[in-house]
């Protein structure tokens, strides 16, 4: 394992410290417990948005703290959900008196820790609602799983709910907007290589030079099946078709297409995937009206990507287009 780190147990602390120094105009970093909030503090009367989860997915979530998106983010240990004692003060910091929305990715650990934190915040008199992002179509959403995982679809949820909060929607409305995004967003991912968690010191799974994992999550967990390496267009087809089928995307619809890098894949390859995914969407008679290509929800240095499609309507498009000013997303 070769990493630009000093000490596996200090990775999150030092990295978040550096992040805070580099973006001091936008964010404030709190330590012990560690969380990140907007530089200016909570905006009175605005619904606060808090998200968080294991570290190792940067820029998610701290990179999305700022105007038009999150009010606070809580990074856990690498790939480990944060604890309630960190989520609770982040919730307090995000509260501008209009209540706080927790945006939680669907993992047992995240759900349980955010639940406990919400109870703590409630005891402090802060109204908290939670939405659970579960966009990963690689996982069957059935009685026989913990439900679908939350992966790259989290970015449009945070962006669009953030815009709703910024324009002054109340807590119930912001939560409803978030739910609407969740209902209309699907993702599937592929890994060409595993990643190495610093304290583990070895790859999260073993792949040969000629194998890839289809249906990978974002925690270095193995995917649903392993196949021989294939050309980018074929791989993109394997990711995009289940996404479009599950969405039931039809002719005449408009979508946001997000091709998300897992951390170790060059931008040039992401654009090759984008090109292929876009053709598949257009072949269904739908149109890609908004696009995002880059590393947004990563798995450390994993090579691979995910394809996310969000069905847009006028409201979601306008909220997507609304100004955002965060370290990792800005327009």
């Amino acid at each position, binding site marked *: 394992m070769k990493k630009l780190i000093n000490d596996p147990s200090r990775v999150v602390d030092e990295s978040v410290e550096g992040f805070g120094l580099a973006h001091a105009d936008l964010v404030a970093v709190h330590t012990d417990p560690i969380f990140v909030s907007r530089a200016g503090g909570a905006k009175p009367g605005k619904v606060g948005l808090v998200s968080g989860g294991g570290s190792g997915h940067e820029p998610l979530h701290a990179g999305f703290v700022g105007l038009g998106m999150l009010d606070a983010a809580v990074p856990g240990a690498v790939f480990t*959900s944060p604890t309630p004692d960190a989520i609770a003060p982040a919730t307090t910091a995000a509260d501008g008196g209009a209540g706080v929305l927790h945006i939680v990715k669907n993992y047992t*650990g995240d759900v349980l820790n955010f639940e406990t934190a919400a109870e703590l915040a409630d005891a402090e008199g802060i109204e908290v609602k939670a939405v659970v992002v579960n966009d990963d179509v690689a996982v069957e959403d059935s009685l026989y799983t913990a439900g679908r995982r939350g992966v790259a679809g989290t970015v449009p949820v945070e962006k669009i709910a953030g815009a709703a909060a910024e324009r002054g929607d109340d807590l119930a409305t912001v939560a409803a907007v978030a739910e609407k995004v969740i209902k209309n967003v699907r993702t599937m991912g592929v890994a060409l290589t595993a990643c190495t968690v610093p304290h583990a010191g070895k790859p999260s799974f073993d792949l040969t030079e000629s194998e890839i994992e289809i249906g990978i999550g974002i925690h*270095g*967990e193995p995917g*649903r099946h392993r196949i021989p390496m294939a050309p980018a267009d074929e791989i993109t087809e394997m990711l995009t078709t289940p996404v479009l089928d599950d969405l039931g995307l039809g002719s005449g619809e408009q979508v946001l297409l997000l091709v998300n890098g897992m951390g170790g894949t060059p931008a040039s390859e992401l654009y090759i995937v984008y090109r292929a995914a876009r053709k598949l969407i257009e072949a269904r008679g739908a149109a890609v009206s908004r696009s995002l290509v880059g590393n947004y929800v990563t798995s450390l240095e994993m090579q691979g990507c995910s394809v996310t499609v969000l069905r847009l309507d006028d409201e979601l498009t306008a909220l997507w287009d609304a100004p955002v000013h965060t370290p990792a997303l800005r327009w």
Partner: protein
Amino acid sequence: MALDVAWALAWVRRTAEVVAEHKVELSELDREIGDGDHGENMNRGFVAVVGKLDALEAPPAQVADVLKLVATTLMSTVGGAAGPLYGTAYLRAAKVTGLESLDASAAVAMLEAALEGIVARGKATTGEKTMVDAWTPATTAAQEVAGNGSSPADVLAAAAAAAEDGAEATIPLVATKGRASYLGERSAGHKDPGATSTAYILRAAADTAAGV
């Protein structure tokens, strides 16, 4: 030894040792069907617990105080699924331990409360390849042994043995709760890390009770 506050402290410290010893094994199990952090998570938690115990000015007066300290520390340091689950387990257990030392039926009640806490939070039943598959047989075995008029130490010994068997028995199961459920059929053939750590925790309880 009697299941008093001295035992509770010994149990917790022994647990910390055992978890540290098996940290790599637990993470390795989790790497196969989860995300590879269970050993690290549990160890981070129990290192913190020991740190807090060492820093106490006055020793805790009762078993319940020890278990509550474990609960809140695990809750705020472990993270992941295991943090809130074990946190709740210790918190519920703390509530049913009496004032002085535990008799056999109090030991059973402690295990029952822990199991109920885990189920209340995690909503898993047996056969879903989780720590519930260690806690459930452990609690059942404890109830049976206590019914026979055994000592509190015997109750814990029976629970530990049953938890170990329960953990082993998770190997063929297909996970339907937690992170391993994402793997579907591919989760079969691997031992559940949370059930394994449960077995270590209960073995530490039994061993310290037996004076081992």
